[in-house]
């Protein structure tokens, strides 16, 4: 998806003002993509402390599931989206009860179990032959608009819109619903929350379900920009972690700010250097953050203890 951005930038990059405009606009798109990807991962981690390494697997699974529903079962698009989000969310929920509950608290086992699940999903699709060019999801709406001399298709506008909607939804959900408040309670102080009757296992399972569902939302809006490729599953994990480390995992403003920084840094790198260097941005960002402010831009004491 990022390479395509570069293509547009270089074609239209003759006039400097257009180039700067396109950097601003496509940087924003890229930032929202990163935020969408990172949000589900950090939500799960922030609430239950489970690093869901199957995240990339769930992301790609959502893409292929929607594709299969659309092409094999001929579902209408909206129904396919709803079913996919529901199924993947349920899968996250079941993952907690079946696998994670038994190894809760052992970081090594949690990591290995979720990692194995993710790799298993991704490689299963590889084996099933989901590697050709026909696997693309349809755009929500075709066509494009011209903003400040820069062409922008509706899909990318949708991405920005859905990203903002999701942030708003998360804010309202965690501040004004019972489940959301329970999430925050567990995240802030697990023991006190338990003493108030909040069930930690239910909360953790729900947080995994929510995180997985958000992975599938991200997949459904982002994947139409390119071909669904299995290696993106691993890439998604890298993005989620890079954004999380730079911004401070579990902190929503941190995720947003880090997405903006990384998103623009990537687009600028892609425009002025080579697109190949865009992946290196993540690594450089991780290294720099760890060297200067190890708990992340908005990280608090809690993760400092865990990470460093």
């Amino acid at each position, binding site marked *: 998806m990022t390479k395509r951005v570069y293509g547009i930038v270089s074609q239209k990059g003759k006039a400097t003002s257009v180039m700067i405009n396109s950097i601003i606009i496509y940087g924003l798109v890229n930032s929202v993509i990163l935020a969408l990807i990172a949000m589900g991962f950090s939500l799960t981690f922030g609430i239950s402390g489970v690093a869901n390494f199957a995240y990339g697997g769930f992301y790609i699974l959502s893409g292929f599931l929607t594709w299969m529903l659309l092409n094999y079962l001929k579902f209408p698009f909206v129904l396919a989206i709803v079913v996919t989000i529901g199924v993947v969310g349920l899968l996250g929920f079941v993952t907690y009860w079946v696998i994670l509950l038994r190894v809760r608290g052992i970081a090594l086992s949690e990591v290995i179990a979720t990692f194995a*699940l993710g790799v298993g999903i991704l490689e299963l699709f590889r084996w099933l032959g989901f590697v050709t060019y026909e696997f693309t999801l349809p755009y929500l709406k075709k066509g494009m608009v011209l903003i400040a001399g820069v062409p922008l298709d509706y899909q990318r506008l949708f991405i920005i819109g859905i990203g903002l909607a999701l942030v708003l939804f998360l804010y309202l959900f965690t501040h004004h619903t019972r489940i959301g408040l329970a999430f925050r309670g567990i995240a802030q102080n697990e023991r006190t929350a338990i003493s108030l009757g909040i069930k930690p296992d239910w909360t953790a399972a729900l947080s995994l379900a929510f995180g997985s569902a958000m992975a599938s939302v991200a997949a459904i809006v982002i994947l139409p920009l390119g071909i669904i490729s299995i290696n993106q599953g691993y890439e998604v994990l890298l993005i989620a972690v890079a954004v999380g480390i730079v911004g401070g995992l579990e902190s929503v403003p941190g995720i947003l700010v880090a997405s903006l920084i990384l998103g623009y840094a990537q687009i600028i790198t892609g425009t002025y250097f080579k697109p190949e260097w865009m992946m290196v941005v993540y690594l450089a960002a991780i290294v720099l953050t*760890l060297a200067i402010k190890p708990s992340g831009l908005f990280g608090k004491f809690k993760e400092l203890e865990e990470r460093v």
Partner: protein
Amino acid sequence: MKFRKERLDRGIKVRCEDIFVLSSYQEMLYMLFPRVVPVMILLILPLLKGVIGLYWEKVFMITCTIALLALSWDLMASVGLISLGQALFFGVGAYVTGFLNHTFKLPPILTIPLGTLGGAFICTLLLLPVLRLRGVYFAIVTLTLPLLLARFIEATKILGGTEGMSGLTPFPNIWVELYVPVLALLVCLFGFRRLINEDYGLVLQGIRDNDRAVMSGAINIYWFKAQAVFIAGVAGAFAGAFMTHYNQVVGMSAFAMDYSVLPLTAAVLGGIGSFAGPTIGAFILIPLSELLRAVGTLRVVFYSAILIICVVGLPEGIFHYMRRKYHQFERMVDVG
């Protein structure tokens, strides 16, 4: 009447713990049996080339290299560094060796040691910034590093790009091919077991269990972590360096997911933290996966399934189970 299972150390085990009490052949045999027999099997298997066939000898050799990677994983796990990317060590070792042989035409006797040490050094440098991370965070970075490096080579077309470097010097004869990995495996296995029981190893394990306590002992834990990564890197990079000359080609497949997942699965299956466990795990897993060669990439799915089952259902691993049976007896006691 209620019964409870009780486990007690065998008398012979208690006596064998002190070297001065080794007074009878029985006790000496008890102590030596689990060490000598596997070593003898490892050393004799290559000689049986005519009996088990060349194909399975090659499988045996690959098993040894994967066991080396699993050992290096286990050493890092002993310091609390969970690695999901052993392919990093394998790939960097392979590429350094391949580069030296391809560009400077050095013979394998030079390229393998240089590739091993140089590869371990490069890996340590790459991991140095993230050694401050613990647990989950470190795991994620190690998972992505080999993928990034493969991508980097693909994009910049250095070191042969997507095609890799071919036409490397082969080994002079089959005995080198068969015995070098076996000897390396034995050296690493017993070396690591020794290392972790020394004072030095105690510091490493201390970092895993409670790094703050180690820090409060005025020990620079990052320096120790870096050393541990280097030592683990030597084992891993050697596997890569050896396989490069064996295959006579090095390409992006050196960073493949297999080299990350296989050692991890072997270690978890065999039992973490004992070094013998990952070796046993590798010797079960690789021949098994060779039998499953027909199913192609489904093998990775199969490893994943083993991983999940082992982590959830058999957390102690095969080795710890075997050791318990060997050293202890069980009986039911009346607690009613």
